[in-house]
């Protein structure tokens, strides 16, 4: 992996779009809301198996980028590729079906469902039961449900949430709700996991555990992880490469240690 200095960052960012090792690429990706350019000719290249951080000051367009990657928004121009296939213009569920899963900045669990049901809902893509199986409760239905239940419990166990399986998803403490969202995202068996501020609202020790966990799930499930985070300790601690955006434009890309000392990044965060 090459290190980029601040001067090279801008050109490195454009090179990222053509990175052949990248599992997720955006090429000159732009989205306009009326006269407002929320994301401006963004090039990204997330390599398979890495933990990639996306940071930037408030309003930089990070969540918008997530929404572009997951099909909530369609880019005004530019392309998005996942595993060398174009995914821009596809609908959210199609992108999820290809192996991109996400969590939300504002937790979006299903309120009336229990913890386990929340996770099982996400097994949907892999369900082998047909509607007919469900209506007549065929052996295939029972087998399929049992399989998903076991798999989801296993996932919950990894996150230490299995003991809350029958509780209401949204009645959990905030930190656990965030973790539950990650479990739910994992239940779709993704190849790429997008985490939108996973450490938001967590205290320092919880955030530390979370970092540990992010690495653990990456190794265990062979994931590629792209995360947006404000907690610099988490970002610097867990990410292998970091891209900084400001006003929808990429301003730096590199190793955490370089980003930390990049004058452009410091300026973006602290202002003039």
């Amino acid at each position, binding site marked *: 992996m090459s290190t980029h200095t601040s001067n090279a960052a801008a050109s490195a960012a454009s090179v990222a779009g053509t990175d052949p090792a990248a599992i997720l690429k955006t090429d000159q990706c732009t989205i306009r809301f009326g006269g407002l350019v*929320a994301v401006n000719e963004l090039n990204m290249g997330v390599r398979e198996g890495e933990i990639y951080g996306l940071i930037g000051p408030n309003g930089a367009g990070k969540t918008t980028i997530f929404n572009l990657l997951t099909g909530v928004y369609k880019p005004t121009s530019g392309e998005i590729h996942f595993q060398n296939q174009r995914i821009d213009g596809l609908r959210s569920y199609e992108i999820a079906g290809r192996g991109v899963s996400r969590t939300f900045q504002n937790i979006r669990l299903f309120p009336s469902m229990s913890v386990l049901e929340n996770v099982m809902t996400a097994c949907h893509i892999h369900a082998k039961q047909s509607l007919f199986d469900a209506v*007549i409760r065929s052996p295939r239905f029972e087998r399929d449900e049992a399989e998903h239940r076991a798999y989801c419990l296993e996932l919950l166990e990894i996150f230490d949430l299995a003991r809350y399986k029958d509780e209401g998803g*949204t009645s959990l403490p905030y930190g656990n709700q965030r973790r539950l969202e990650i479990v739910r995202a994992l239940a779709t068996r993704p190849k790429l996991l997008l985490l939108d501020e996973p450490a938001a609202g967590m205290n320092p020790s919880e955030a530390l555990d979370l970092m540990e966990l992010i690495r653990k799930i990456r190794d265990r499930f062979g994931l590629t992880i792209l995360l947006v985070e404000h907690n610099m300790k988490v970002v610097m601690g867990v990410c292998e490469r970091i891209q900084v955006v400001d006003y929808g434009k990429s301003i730096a890309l590199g190793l955490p240690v370089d980003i930390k000392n990049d004058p452009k990044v410091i300026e973006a965060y602290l202002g003039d």
Partner: protein
Amino acid sequence: MSRYLRNLIIALVVIAVLYGLNFVFAGRMISPYFTRILLLSGISITLAVSLNLINGFTGQFSIGHAGFMAVGAYSSAYFSVTYGARLAVALGDGTLGWFVALTLATLVGAAFAAFAGLLVGVPSLRLKGDYLAIVTLGFGQIIVVFLNTIEVVGGARGYSGIPIVKSFFWVFLVAILTIVGVYNIVNSAFGRALISIREDELAAEAMGINTTRYKVMAFVISSGMAGAGGVLLAHFDGYLNPKSFEFIKSFEILIMIILGGLGSIVGSVLGAILLTVLPEALRGFAEYRMVIYSVLLIILMITRPQGLLGKTGSFKGWRRNRTKSRTEAEEITAEDTRDNPSVEKATLGERQSDTSLGEEKPQ
């Protein structure tokens, strides 16, 4: 496998019991008036439970249910008059003959209603909340107007001469099949997808659920079941009139499920029975009947806005009660704003409003 076998045995026992009870009600032991109300309750149950699938579980506010019921009623009536009766006679005009004829009539009615549901659902389920309600209401009315013009089924005069089958067995077989069907659908991967659409459509999409497809499917199933309810009604009095399927009927079914609790199957059953029995039970009050009826509804809605059986204790019907995690105020607003995340989030308070997903707006 043993579980499958067990379910099969239960099903057979239920059918046997229904069949036995059929003789009890066919005899003169029980007053025809009581039997009539009981059977009407059974029909109401079918309609209410099926409407709950789309309104309560999927969270799509549809109020054109009577229209699909009408499609089922008229198509099956036409079938029975032209083919069914002849078929029954050909098969010996006995129990078997009518069983076959009615099964076919029910399938025809359900299929036509489901098809009507597909035609209405595909364009209208792109809309949400109030808009969807208005569009489904409109479609329901269109169906009625359409029926008024078809001379072959009597037009505005009504359709008479339909074979009468006042059978406890049939009415409750269809009602139980609807209940079991909806229960099994709701408690499956399909049902979880439906409920996730009600709870948070955006998150559901992100979990790989094709929300449009599921909404349409739920709508089609719900319409088909309403059609089966219509079949029962068509063969109940042997007479159909388009007037009985106007929007007032749709509202009646809607009240049943709201009263019983949206998203609760048992609630729908209770609501259906209550709304069928109550107007009859209040006959003693003569001219004050409808006043008392309305007042009772108002009192119930004020004291239990979430319905008799809470709104979102829904997933396993009555078994689990998770309403404690939601305050009453949330429940009231959740009902009105189910399809409008922005309002719901605002009332949930602890979450920030995220009407615009990219809330990070560059200055």
